[in-house]
């Protein structure tokens, strides 16, 4: 079965990142249509489409947009979240590098809808190529009159500024992102107030993910009903799934929401490499609870995964084969969150540090049986108690791994060493 490409239609075409290529394939035709529709009708259309945020939480985009007080005396900002740093997630980078105008068109329509005249695109510092491409795309867009003053003669003005981050996963969290643009450490803010009321420089602000905004021109051009007919009733549209890890064909696959994880792994990913079997799957980026091989028939949508105690997140699917030590997987993830915690909340700062330390002890054969329940307990303490969801993002995968693969932890402790006995994790043959 081919993919259902809407956003990815032109990603393989040479020069797809240029404005000529974009306009030649029907780009920037949603914008004049949107300018004729008017802001409220756009918001209504996005609501009807059922579009849910692609940045991780799946919040309905049209509803988020309607939270902004459109006649605010202060400026209103849109921030496009291009910080993509979630382990296993690499979908936004392709949009940025291969079809940036699609995203820019979504930004202009979004800004018009929420009455914003300034948009920041926050791109992570580790995407220098993406930044170069976006800089050029923004310039081209100004030159053609899709950005700047009196866009397409509508009287609507918009400036887009590219802001380059400097290495911090936490800046993808929307309030940390705002702090970072303000020139401060990326330390999330307590909510309320929410950014829609008090956001960037104290002004009303909407933060949306790259893929979310890129869906918008398609909804305007082809209609909310068309979009809503794809996927399942509450999980509409296509989703760009990322497949990585122990898989034969890693890569990006655009398919309707609700496709089964099995189909994704076996039909599109062509199964597990080196003749191995699936042991575990991280279905929605590193922060999602892992699933076991028995859970592989689950539909890949927001609600089904939430019901299974995990999440769709960014739909970055990391597949783990049966030659992999799960203690090592948990340790690898805990290291990430320990490294990336901003340090404001004790439960997160100490919790991530402690989890990594305990997991390392067990992996190195110095664990004790009572550590296992203490690990579960520590994860429980970290959930729902902090300023942002990073602590949960560490606790969820670790807790699920300890609970679902408890026997591996016990074996490490009984043997006094890792039963897999590999010096280095994973497989690399290193040949071309």
């Amino acid at each position, binding site marked *: 079965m081919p993919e259902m490409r809407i956003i990815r239609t032109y990603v393989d075409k040479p020069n797809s990142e240029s404005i000529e290529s974009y306009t030649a394939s029907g780009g920037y035709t949603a914008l004049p249509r949107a300018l004729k529709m008017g802001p409220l009708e756009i918001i209504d259309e996005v609501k009807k489409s059922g579009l849910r945020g692609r940045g991780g939480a799946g919040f309905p985009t049209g509803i988020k947009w309607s939270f902004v007080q459109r006649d605010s005396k202060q400026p209103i900002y849109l921030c496009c979240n291009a910080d993509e740093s979630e382990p296993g997630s690499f979908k936004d980078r392709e949009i940025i590098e291969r079809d940036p105008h699609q995203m820019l068109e979504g930004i202009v329509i979004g800004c018009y809808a929420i009455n914003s005249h300034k948009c920041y695109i926050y791109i992570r510092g580790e995407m*220098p190529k993406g930044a170069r491409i976006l800089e050029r795309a923004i310039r081209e867009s100004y030159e053609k009159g899709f950005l700047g003053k009196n866009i397409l003669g509508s009287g609507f003005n918009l400036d887009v500024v590219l802001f380059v981050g400097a290495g911090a996963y936490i800046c993808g969290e929307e309030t940390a992102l705002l702090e970072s643009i303000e020139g401060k450490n990326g330390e999330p803010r307590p909510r309320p107030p929410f950014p829609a009321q008090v956001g960037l420089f104290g002004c009303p602000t909407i933060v949306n993910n790259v893929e979310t905004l890129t869906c918008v021109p398609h909804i305007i051009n082809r209609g909310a009903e068309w979009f809503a007919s794809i996927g399942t009733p509450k999980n509409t549209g296509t989703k760009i799934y990322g497949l990585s890890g122990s898989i034969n064909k890693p890569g990006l696959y655009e398919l309707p929401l609700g496709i089964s994880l099995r189909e994704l792994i076996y039909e599109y990913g062509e199964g597990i490499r080196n003749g191995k079997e699936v042991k575990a799957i991280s279905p929605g980026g590193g922060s999602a609870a892992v699933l076991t091989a028995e859970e592989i028939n689950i539909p890949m949508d927001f609600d089904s995964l939430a019901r299974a105690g995990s999440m769709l997140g960014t739909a970055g699917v990391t597949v783990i084969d049966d030659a992999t030590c799960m203690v090592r997987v948990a340790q690898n993830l805990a290291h990430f969150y320990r490294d990336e915690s901003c340090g404001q909340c004790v439960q997160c700062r100490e919790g991530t540090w402690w989890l990594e330390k305990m997991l390392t002890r067990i992996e190195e054969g110095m664990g004790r049986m009572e550590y296992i329940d203490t690990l579960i307990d520590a994860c429980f303490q970290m959930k729902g108690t902090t300023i942002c969801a990073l602590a949960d993002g560490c606790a969820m995968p670790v807790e699920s791994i300890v609970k679902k693969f408890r026997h591996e932890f016990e074996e490490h402790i009984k043997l006094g060493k890792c039963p897999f006995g590999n010096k280095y994790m994973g497989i690399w043959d290193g040949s071309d």
Partner: protein
Amino acid sequence: MPFSVELREKINQIISKSETRQSALIPTLHAVQREYGWLPNECMSEVAEILDIPPASVQNVATFYTMFFTKPVGKHVIWLCRTLSCALRGAEHVEHYLSEKLGIHTGETTTDGKITLLEAECLASCGTAPAMLVDDELYENLTRKKIDELIEKLKKD
């Protein structure tokens, strides 16, 4: 060492486009690091003076973000991804290979000052793992040959 005229010009441009002086800080630090390769103390003091913000705030931000270097680094910086998808496809093997080849551990710089090897977290290249960012270029699907050729090139430069 006062900043060059070009750098001053660049910073003035950043300030003129920023909502607040503080919000000019991160783009300014990028511009300064591009010129010096890292952020020496004197540079940070000068940034504080130009932006008219507390020096402590400049230090604080420079140390929070991993891509700002408050200690000298090599002429080239290798950021090798260590996160899960890369680890499953051999990032630890790659680290060992690189480390042997360069004669340094992760976190160190070669004695000739050419190359610093650092650990990165997920670089959004999980589908083409193992991956690393070298200065401004991403290297994906790493093999021994790709690494050998790259190191050769960096050493000559």
